[in-house]
C-alpha cells in the first residue's frame, strides 16, 4: 500500500478502541477527506471497555450490544477498519508502519492509540496456572463468564482491590460466585481515594458477602487438580476455581520507544496530542501529557481522556490549533452504588465530607484551599457542582460546603 496524497493524504491509526475510534470519527467531522485506516490486534468490532467489569460481565448480552459505533457507521464515514492485525513496527524515517504479516502501510499522519494491557506482577506461578485470567478485552470476559457459569458455586480470588478488581467482585458475586479480594495495601483503593471512601467500599462489599482482605501480599499461585491456590506472604492460602489479576496496567509504548519517540511513563505528547515526531500523534491511555489544570505531567486511564484527546488530535491534524485542557472525570459502578469522580485528588492535604445520608455523600479533596477533586457516591449533584467549581477554579466556602442545610449549588459555595 502506498499513501495517496489527495486531500489530506492517509491517516493511519494504531489501536481501535475508545481513543482510536473516537479519533477517526472526529477527524472526518473536522473535514479530513483523505483515507483513515484503523488497525487493531483485537478481532472484535470495537466495543466499550468500562462495562466489561460491570453490567456486561454480570449480564448475558453479546458484545454486539456493547459496540462503540454501529458497523455501518465506519462504512458511511469511509473509515477502514482492519481488525485482528497487529502492528509490528513504525518506521518514522520512511513514514510507514509494518504489520506483523510483513506488509507495510505508508502514512502521512500516524496516530498511536495503543492503550494499555494488564500488568502481571511477579508472582511465582502466575503464568503457569491455567486458572489465572486478566480482564481487559471482550474475550477475557467471555472466558471469565464461562468459567463462572460452568461451576455451580465457583470460588473466585481477585488479586487487587482497585476499581476494576472491586467492580469485577461485585459483578461476579451477583452471578453467584463466592468472591475473595486480596489487596496488598492496608486499604482498598489506597492509591486513588481517601480512607473514608476505602472504608465505605469495604463495608459495601462485606454487606454483599464479598470478602475483601487487605494487607494481603500474594507471593505465589499453585494448583491442585481441582483448583488454583493463591498463597500470601503471611502464609494464608485461598483456593479458587478462578483467579483474576487486577493490579493495574502497563502502557503499550514499545512501538513508540522503538520508533525513537520520547516516552516517559507513557508516550509524551503536547497540548495538541503531538509526539516528539511532528507526523505522529498519540492519544488515550498510552499517553503522558502536561495537564494544564493541575500543572503537572499525568498519565490517565479513562474514557474521558481517550475521547477528549482524540478530539484534540483530530482538530490538530485538520490544521486547527486546539489545546487539551479538559477536566479529568471517571466513574465506577459497584452493586447499586454509583461513584462519580471529578478531577484528580493526588497531592491533597485536606479532605471534607458532605453527607446527605448513609449511602449518599461526597468527599472533597483540597490542597490548602484549592479544590482538587470530588468523589460523589450516589450523588450526581455533588459531581456536577464539583465539576463546575473545578472548571472555573473557584475558591470554595468550606463551611457552607459541609453544611447540609445549605443547598448544594455553585452560587452558594463560592467564597466571596
Amino acid at each position, binding site marked *: 500500500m502506498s499513501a495517496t496524497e489527495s486531500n489530506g493524504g492517509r491517516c493511519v491509526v494504531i489501536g481501535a478502541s475508545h481513543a482510536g475510534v473516537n479519533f477517526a470519527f472526529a477527524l472526518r467531522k473536522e473535514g479530513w477527506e483523505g483515507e483513515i485506516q484503523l488497525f487493531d490486534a483485537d478481532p472484535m468490532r470495537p466495543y466499550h471497555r468500562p462495562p466489561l467489569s460491570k*453490567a456486561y460481565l454480570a449480564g448475558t448480552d453479546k458484545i454486539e450490544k456493547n459496540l462503540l459505533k454501529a458497523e455501518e*457507521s465506519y462504512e458511511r464515514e469511509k473509515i477502514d477498519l482492519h481488525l485482528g492485525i497487529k502492528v509490528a513496527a513504525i518506521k518514522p524515517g520512511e513514514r510507514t508502519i509494518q504489520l506483523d504479516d510483513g506488509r507495510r502501510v505508508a502514512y502521512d499522519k500516524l496516530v498511536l492509540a495503543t492503550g494499555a494491557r494488564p500488568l502481571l506482577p511477579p508472582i511465582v506461578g502466575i503464568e503457569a496456572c491455567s486458572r489465572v485470567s486478566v480482564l481487559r478485552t471482550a474475550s477475557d470476559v467471555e472466558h471469565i463468564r464461562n468459567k463462572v457459569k460452568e461451576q455451580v458455586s465457583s470460588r473466585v480470588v481477585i488479586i487487587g482491590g482497585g476499581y476494576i478488581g472491586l467492580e469485577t467482585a461485585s459483578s461476579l458475586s451477583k452471578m453467584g460466585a463466592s468472591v475473595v479480594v486480596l489487596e496488598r495495601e492496608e486499604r482498598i483503593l489506597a492509591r486513588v481515594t481517601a480512607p473514608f471512601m476505602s472504608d465505605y467500599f469495604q463495608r459495601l462489599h462485606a454487606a454483599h458477602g464479598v470478602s475483601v482482605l487487605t494487607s494481603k501480599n500474594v507471593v505465589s499461585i499453585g494448583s491442585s487438580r481441582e483448583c488454583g491456590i493463591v498463597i500470601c506472604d503471611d502464609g494464608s492460602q485461598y483456593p479458587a476455581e478462578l483467579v483474576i489479576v487486577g493490579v493495574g496496567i502497563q502502557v503499550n509504548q514499545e512501538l513508540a520507544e522503538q520508533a525513537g519517540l520520547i516516552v516517559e511513563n507513557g508516550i509524551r505528547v503536547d497540548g495538541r496530542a503531538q509526539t516528539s515526531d511532528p507526523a505522529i500523534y498519540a492519544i488515550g491511555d498510552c499517553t503522558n501529557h502536561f495537564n494544564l489544570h493541575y500543572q503537572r505531567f499525568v498519565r490517565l486511564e479513562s474514557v474521558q481522556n481517550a475521547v477528549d484527546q482524540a478530539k484534540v488530535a483530530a482538530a490538530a491534524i485538520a490544521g486547527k490549533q486546539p489545546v487539551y485542557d479538559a477536566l479529568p472525570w471517571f466513574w465506577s459502578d459497584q452493586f447499586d452504588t454509583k461513584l462519580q469522580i471529578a478531577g484528580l485528588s493526588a497531592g491533597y492535604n485536606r479532605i471534607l465530607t458532605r453527607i446527605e445520608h448513609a449511602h449518599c455523600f461526597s468527599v472533597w479533596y483540597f490542597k490548602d484551599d484549592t479544590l482538587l477533586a470530588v468523589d460523589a457516591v450516589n450523588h450526581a449533584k455533588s459531581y*456536577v457542582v464539583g465539576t463546575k467549581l473545578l472548571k472555573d477554579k473557584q475558591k470554595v466556602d468550606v463551611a457552607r460546603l459541609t453544611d447540609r442545610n445549605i443547598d448544594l449549588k455553585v452560587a452558594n459555595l463560592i467564597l466571596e
Partner: protein
Amino acid sequence: MAQITFVTSDNDSITLEGTSGSVMSLAVGHGVKGIDGDCGGVCSCATCHVFVAPGDLEKTGPASEIETDMLELDDNANEFSRLCCQIEISDAIDGIVLTVAK
C-alpha cells in the same frame, strides 16, 4: 415495538424501530449523529442528551433525579431534556420525536 424519530443538528430526521434496550443504544447502533454514549449508557457522561418533543413528554416521563443533576452540566438543558440512555424502549414510547442536543 416502538418507532422513534431523531432530529439531528443538521436537521436530518431519522426514524428507527426498536423493541428493547435503551434509546441511546438504538441511536448509536444506527449511527445517529450527536448521540455518542461515551459511558455506554450508565448516566455518567451526558453525551446522549436529547430534547423530547413537548407533546411526547407524557410518554417518556420526566428525567430522574440523577439525570436532572447530570443534565446541569449542559447549559442548554431545559424541561424537555433527557439523557436517552435512561429511556427504555417499549410500546409506550411509540411515535416519539427526539431532537439531538448539540
